[in-house]
């Protein structure tokens, strides 16, 4: 957008300002009756008439037109000073117009022009007595003009920001910068899990509950945030309660099971579901009232949680696009090349003459096929984050079957999982840890058998990989693979342990989420006996 556009846009405003100023000046001058000022006002009217006329011509550049107008106005005001300071208010009009049309820069240009003309016209002129009253009067009207010009400049800038794409990006940039600064300052961070834990702690201070879980709501259903302690029980009842709270937005009590919403001004953020302590022998209505009160008191935390979830969404959105790009690059590039090499190796296999050559070619082909399979999976995984419709246990089983068929090493998988699923990113990390664990056992441990046990009762989960190989043999603790496994575990708030088995040869890798709830999660679970025969 150019100054010309702005001049045209504000033409009616600027013309209006000039007319208004003329009217304002005309009355005192007419009342006064002396001829000089009347002539000046008429001249001023002529100047402004010309200015309005010039506004209509796109060919006349804006800046010189404004400066010339301002100089003429200042000259008229200065020449009239000998008789009366009545024309001084007119100085404000060019300032206002310049601010409006050209922003603060225009304001300064015009101010400079007016000041110079005033000085040049008054100081050498003996008929004008420069005294304090005159100075203060000039000063006052210049300041009024600057004030008007500043208002004009603000309007000018506002308008500019709103109407340009660059403006909206600038705004977004400012907001995101603020978000970045803010996220560093936030006392409780922007980690939904941490905030959820905080909410659960607060709830427990207020009402005697156990097994509190916080559910967040998205497009199709609700997901438990991982933190919190869990009660192994009737998932159907629990889900029903949460669904009811989501629908009604009010607390619900059913027997000892309770659920209440976390709400902000904008609406429902999450649902807290828990079990009342049996000793809390309040009647149902009193419990309801207490929960609803608690729900209101937790508004600040709800805002925190909402913000954190929103932030997580932004992050997810940003990563999503990057993942698509990566998947595309992998798919179009290296994956195709490797697949093509595979077909070429198939040709080598046919050319092989000795059984040893055939075997070598076959081995090479198998390894390559495995790599390409992995790549296919990686591409799919990148495009569809943990897209597997398999549960974690089923995925572990499938992976174990795959590794087992490739290596000939028996891998025995024990599963104990309920209907509820972990969040998909948590599942992905766990799966990667187990994969690395199984591969390590195959590659380094010289094991003859591997057992994998997988317990998933969200938010509790534990996966163990146990082999009967030669053990850790020291010095593997800082290996690259282990560091990555630890990092993965840390990311999902889990505990990872890798150690030699007690009293036997072999290693045990264990990763556990929400260890505190282990006893509850495992009471209904199959017992954990992994003794070698």
């Amino acid at each position: 957008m150019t100054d010309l556009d702005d001049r045209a846009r504000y033409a009616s405003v600027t013309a209006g300002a000039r007319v208004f100023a003329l009217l304002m000046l005309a009355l005192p001058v007419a009342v006064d009756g002396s001829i000089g000022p009347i002539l000046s006002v008429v001249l001023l009217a002529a100047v402004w008439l010309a200015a309005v006329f010039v506004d209509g011509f796109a060919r006349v550049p804006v800046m010189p037109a404004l400066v010339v107008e301002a100089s003429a106005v200042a000259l008229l005001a200065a020449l009239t000073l000998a008789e009366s300071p009545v024309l001084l208010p007119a100085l404000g009009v060019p300032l206002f117009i310049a601010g409006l049309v050209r922003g603060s820069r225009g304001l300064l240009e015009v101010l400079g022009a007016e000041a110079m003309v005033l000085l040049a016209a008054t100081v050498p002129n003996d008929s004008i007595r420069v005294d304090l009253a005159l100075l203060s009067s000039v000063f006052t009207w210049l300041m009024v003009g600057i004030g008007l010009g500043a208002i004009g400049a603000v309007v000018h800038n506002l308008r500019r920001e709103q109407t340009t794409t660059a403006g909206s990006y600038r705004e977004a940039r400012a907001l995101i910068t603020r978000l970045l600064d803010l996220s560093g300052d936030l006392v409780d961070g922007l980690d939904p899990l941490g905030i959820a834990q905080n909410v659960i702690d607060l709830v427990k201070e207020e009402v005697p509950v156990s097994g509190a879980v916080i559910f967040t709501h998205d497009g199709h259903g609700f997901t438990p945030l991982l933190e919190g302690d869990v009660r192994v029980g009737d998932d159907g009842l629990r889900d029903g309660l949460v669904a009811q709270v989501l629908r009604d937005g009010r607390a619900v009590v059913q027997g000892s099971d309770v659920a209440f919403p976390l709400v902000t001004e904008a609406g429902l953020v999450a649902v807290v579901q828990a079990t009342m302590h049996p000793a809390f022998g309040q009647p149902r209505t009193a419990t309801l009232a207490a929960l609803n009160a608690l729900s209101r008191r937790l508004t600040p935390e709800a805002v925190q949680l909402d913000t954190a979830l929103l932030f997580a969404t932004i992050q997810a959105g940003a990563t999503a696009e990057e993942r698509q790009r990566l998947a595309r690059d992998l798919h179009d590039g290296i994956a195709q090349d490797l697949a093509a090499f595979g077909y070429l190796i198939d040709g080598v296999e046919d050319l092989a003459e000795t059984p040893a050559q055939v075997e070598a070619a076959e081995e090479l082909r198998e390894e390559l096929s495995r790599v390409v399979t992995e790549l296919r999976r990686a591409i799919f995984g990148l495009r569809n984050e943990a897209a597997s419709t398999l549960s974690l246990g089923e995925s572990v089983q499938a992976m174990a079957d795959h590794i087992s068929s490739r290596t000939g090493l028996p891998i025995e998988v024990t599963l104990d999982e309920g209907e509820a699923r972990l969040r998909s990113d948590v599942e992905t990390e766990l799966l990667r840890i187990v994969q690395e664990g199984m591969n390590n056992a195959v590659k380094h441990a010289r094991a003859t058998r591997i057992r994998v046990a997988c317990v998933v009762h969200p938010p509790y989960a534990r996966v163990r990989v146990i082999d009967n190989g030669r053990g850790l043999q020291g010095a593997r603790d800082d290996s690259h693979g282990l560091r990555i496994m630890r990092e993965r575990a840390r990311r999902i708030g889990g505990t990872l342990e890798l150690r030699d088995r007690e009293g036997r040869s072999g290693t045990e890798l264990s990763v556990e989420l929400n260890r505190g709830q282990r006893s509850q999660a495992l009471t209904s679970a199959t017992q954990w006996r992994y003794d070698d025969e």
Partner: protein
Amino acid sequence: MSDETRSPLRVVLVDDHELIRTGLSRAFEREADITVAGLAGSVGQALQVIAEQRPDVVVTDLQLPDGTGLDIVKTIRQRNDRMGLVVLTMHSGDDHIFAAMEAGASAFVGKDAPSREVVSAARHSAISPRTFLCSGLAGAMMRRANDDRPRLSEREKEVLDLLAEGLGTAQIAGRLYMSESTVKTHIAKLYQKLGATNRAQALVTAMRTGLLSAVNPS
């Protein structure tokens, strides 16, 4: 199959990767009773070569510069029930398997499989073009039975994939030859089905639930 009296199986290979075309055509040429009748690197080229050569079998990649292998499969299957159509792809995911099956393909082979599997799929497809051969089909069927993801129409899937490519409404309208307002309607329905209020959310949900498995339309 190496019956001397029978004419050789004529195969057309479609892939935009030259190295893949070379490797595969060598693998097919090693078979005494198969000849490679033509090679193509795009949908347009493929349809032309197929029309000229009238092969017994077409082996096609899914993702091609000017469309997808399924476009070829559908086009041929509309008129011809006896041509073997093998889909060969780097993509994995159940949706591709079903899409290939529904388009009328005879077989679905991953690019990780050795060439002899591609060859045997081609032989199978020549014999029974209207049965569907795919090693992962049973598993995919079972998973589909338990599938509770939102059901998207074909159009909505196309729109979703283009959204995932980062295209705007106008660009999508251009790609799919529909008006912008139609695209907007599709996008609104998509958001509704995915429980999303904006593009990023829709994309994230689609990724989480594995709806983005379709080949990126080019």
